[in-house]
């Protein structure tokens, strides 16, 4: 019962909006705002048809590659910068500068270096979504509780064991916050990198649809992107809930106590 009520709450508004769009657009003759029924047809036929493998999959592969590299580099550098104050003082101004550069503007530059193929797009995604991961990790590592750290020291837990048993778990709530921000940045950059120059991908297909006046397909591409982002964030939350179960429990206990 409680589950049904929650599902009803979650699905209520989307259903209302979808219905509203469907009804108001049903008799539309406007070329640029086709009826939702036609958009849905195109979504099913095109996007869940041939384009799934031709465009969605390549985009997803680039997204995954860029995101994973960013996570690896961001967490590694974040741990180092959070651990060594000297390194932090040295790198902070440079990091702030790089972070301030809007990632889309590096696309033209990276095109010159890496061409227009996968490498460029993966680098763009990595470059953009690495910063929130890196900075959040550094912050989390810096904020490791002093008593916990002393406890680990007195039990002579050092080196790799310290990293595995203390630093990474203690920083994991912030690391996940960074990864969550990074994911939405990565999705944006996945599309943007394909708008400039590409031969396949979601962003490319949407622009191509618009240029060839395949308007329902363009709208459907947008819906596809929305669905994809939604599914990815759902997946992310599943992973996070598993990893951070202890943290959510701890927070609940602290609020109750």
């Amino acid at each position, binding site marked *: 019962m409680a589950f049904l009520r929650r599902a009803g709450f979650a699905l209520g508004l989307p259903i209302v909006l979808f219905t509203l769009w469907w009804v108001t657009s049903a008799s539309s003759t406007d070329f640029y705002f086709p009826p939702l029924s036609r958009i849905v047809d195109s979504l099913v036929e095109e996007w869940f048809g041939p384009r799934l493998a031709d465009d969605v999959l390549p985009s997803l592969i680039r997204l995954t590659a860029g995101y994973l590299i960013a996570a690896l580099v961001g967490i590694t550098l974040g741990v180092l910068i959070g651990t060594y104050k000297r390194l932090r003082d040295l790198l902070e101004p440079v990091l702030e500068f790089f972070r301030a550069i809007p990632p889309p503007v590096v696309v033209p530059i990276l095109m010159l270096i890496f061409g227009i193929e996968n490498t460029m797009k993966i680098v763009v995604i990595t470059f953009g979504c690495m910063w929130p991961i890196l900075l959040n990790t550094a912050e989390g590592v810096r904020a490791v509780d002093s*008593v916990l750290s002393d*406890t680990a*020291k*007195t*039990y*002579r837990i050092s080196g790799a064991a310290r990293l595995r*048993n203390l630093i990474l778990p203690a920083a*994991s709530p912030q690391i996940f916050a960074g990864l969550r921000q990074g994911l939405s940045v990565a999705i944006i950059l996945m599309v943007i990198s394909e708008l400039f120059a590409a031969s396949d991908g979601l962003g490319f297909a949407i622009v191509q649809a618009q240029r060839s006046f395949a308007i329902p397909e363009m709208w459907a591409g947008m819906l596809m992107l929305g669905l994809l982002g939604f599914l990815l964030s759902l997946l992310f939350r599943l992973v996070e809930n598993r990893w951070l179960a*202890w943290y959510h429990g*701890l927070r609940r206990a602290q609020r109750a106590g």
Partner: protein
Amino acid sequence: MLEVNGIKKVYEGKSRTVEAVRNLTFTLQKGEFACLVGPSGSGKTTLLKIMSGLLDPTAGEVLLDGKRVDGPPPGMAIVFQEYGRSLFPWMSVRENVELPLKQKKVPAARRKELVDESVAAVGLADVHSAYPWQLSGGMQQRVAIARAIAYEPQVLLMDEPFAAVDAQTRADLEDLVRDLWHRFQVTTLFVTHDIDESVYLGQRVIVLSSSPTVIRDDVAIDLPEERDQLHTRSSPRFAELRARVFEQIHRPVEGQAHGVATHAPDVIAPSGATAVSATSDGGH
């Protein structure tokens, strides 16, 4: 066994220098249970951090079994006051107790034995798979104690471990610590600001002054070995010992260069003129 020789600690700040610990010398014998009692802000935690190698002294040295301590030594376990911050919240009770043993490279079978024994000894055998934050404060501190016991330390240091739990839990934990000491014969130094607790628990009470800290007195506790909260605490001898410790703590410092001790850490001005009124010490 554990020797503290002329330990001094001065914190150098930008605008002022604080002498937290002036000069401390004492020795713990093997298997001894001593309590260190002093008013709040008397540098007890500073001393404990120095003894455990977490902090370097300005002068003096700590020797464990004749070896100079210059980093956390093997064979030393500490139970901190902040139980909520000294257990790893992402590990179960069992994993918390086991982690130091893994680090010590204790073989798996022996590890299991030690964990089972110590978790049972503190009365938590049925919650070994729970997370620390699912337990009450007193139970969390029991986990920290179990972890220390399982480590089989030569020396167990406890830094005001029961200052943050309620009175009933505290009494239970005091008896538990005495029990465990009888059972495992670990050399124990128990730091507290509670005079009654210091007299009740140990064989010996080392009385500290307020900061800058010196040793005021070293009282042998000749209460019977079998102690219980009701009878021991109401015995005349307990009252006498308690009074003696109380007097020493509240006695103003005599004949020291920096005049009168206060609860606030002394600030050493360049001129050395730091005599402050003794009213806060209750020593009129």
